[in-house]
């Protein structure tokens, strides 16, 4: 396998006001790889990925995408370069329909043929979205909103997709469905994926490896054997 780097960070620090939350995180995500970022509540996982996509300023360090420096670019520019983001809490637009979300995501792709190809793929992955396509997103269930947020990000045709806690507030059987969908679209689209989650079975069923984060720093790298070991995972997730 000859995998090259898609997204890399070097000693990234960031935080809120004067409080530093993320301390010197360096990660490397390769093509077609699903990488977990795991750790307890409040260790700075969301803050880290928000720094990657330009929502929070990096006070130090460097973020590169395909070797190009994207540190502290505006979020819309980073999105246009191919970084998709599914926020924690889903971040749907409550007063807009399912279809409008997919349209909005799709504007990142100028080619209308590609857009309809992606739309078809999204509806295949999540048939419920097709069924509910003219429903207001605010009236969808939590799991459906999560699928919509994933669909919206996929519609833009990203090179790398960042998912922040897709299992949060979602029924267990839907979590399984989302896990399958992740594996499925990784294969079909040759995507790289960063998956933050605290659900041990979702992590062990999907990721190739994972970074364990504590107090804003990476404290361990779990290889493919380690992430299959749910007991070990649970320890990292709940110490």
């Amino acid at each position, binding site marked *: 396998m000859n995998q090259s780097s898609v997204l890399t960070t070097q000693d990234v620090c960031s935080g809120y006001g004067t409080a530093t939350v993320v301390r010197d995180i360096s990660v490397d995500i390769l093509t077609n790889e699903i990488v977990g970022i795991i750790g307890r509540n409040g260790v700075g996982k969301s803050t880290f990925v928000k720094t990657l*996509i*330009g*929502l929070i300023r990096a006070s130090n360090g460097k973020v590169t995408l395909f070797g190009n420096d994207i540190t502290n670019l505006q979020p819309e520019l980073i999105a246009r370069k191919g970084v998709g983001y599914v926020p924690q809490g889903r971040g749907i*637009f409550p007063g807009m329909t399912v279809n409008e979300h997919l349209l909005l995501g799709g*504007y*990142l792709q100028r080619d209308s043929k590609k857009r309809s190809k992606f739309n078809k793929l999204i509806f295949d992955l999540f048939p419920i979205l097709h069924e509910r396509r003219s429903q*207001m997103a605010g009236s969808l269930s939590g799991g459906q909103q999560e699928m919509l947020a994933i669909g919206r990000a996929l519609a833009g045709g990203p090179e790398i997709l960042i998912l922040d806690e897709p299992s949060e507030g979602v029924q267990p059987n839907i979590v399984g469905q989302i896990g399958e969908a992740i594996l499925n679209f990784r294969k079909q689209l040759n995507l790289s994926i960063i998956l933050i989650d605290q659900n041990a079975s979702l992590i062990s069923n999907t990721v190739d490896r994972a970074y364990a984060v504590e107090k804003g720093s990476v404290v361990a790298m779990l290889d493919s054997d380690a992430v299959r070991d749910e007991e070990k995972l649970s320890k990292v997730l709940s110490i």
Partner: protein
Amino acid sequence: MEIAPLIISLVYQALTAGAFLVLCSIGLMIVLGMMNIINLAHGEIMMIGAYVASLLVTEGLPFFLTLPFCFLVGVLVGLVIEFLFIRYLYSRILSALVLTWGLGLIIAQGALLIYGPFLPSIKIPFGSIEYGGFTYSIYQLFLIFVAALLVALIYFILQKTELGLKARATMQNPEIASTIGINRKKMFSITFAFGAGLAALAGGVLAPTTTIAPFMGTQFVAPAFITVVVGGATNIITGTLYSAGSLAAIRTPIGMYLGSFAGTVGLFFAALILIRLYPNGLASIRLFGRR
């Protein structure tokens, strides 16, 4: 007295009153509903529209050809105000309110200094027609048409165009909108400029019906705010339509029988009661199930 002409006359007056409210409020509604900014310079931007119309008519341009210029000048004024001030005041409602109030004063005083207390008024185009003992101004019919057209156009832009979808997404969650490639600063400045353009256009089309003077904006601001508050800013189109419609429907019969002052008092009372009954605005009423 026959009943049909009376009903037609009532409907005409209600539509006229409703069109006036729509024209006064639509720009304000967009800026408040989309951006949560209370633009107290709204009346002065309408005044600018009327000034553009009057000055260009004086230069010899036919009145109807001045209207695109009213809109464009409004857009430019909006872009400048947004660029210089408003963009630093998002999510600071009170600061924006004080700032736009001050700007309104400066614009009105500036107009007074530059152009004096009056500009030549614009002759009302078209004449009038008579039917069943009542007189109808053709220009008022035109205003009803313009108001309806603007509402339809805004509906189309917001619901059916890429720009409209992006603007609505930005209004609902600017941060998330930026993560799907939408330039939120650009959306905010386009939206503010569009609202200002609409206000100036409204000032332009209303110009022939009123005296063109530096402080003419004040006569539009009260009805504009009442319409916006009664309608609520959750849905621009339904809010404006329900609100302008119900206020006009209340005001018109009272005005017809008790005189226009009583009509205005009735309008204020109706507004008070509607705000009390629907504190989130009439747009929060769900008539058609979803939305």
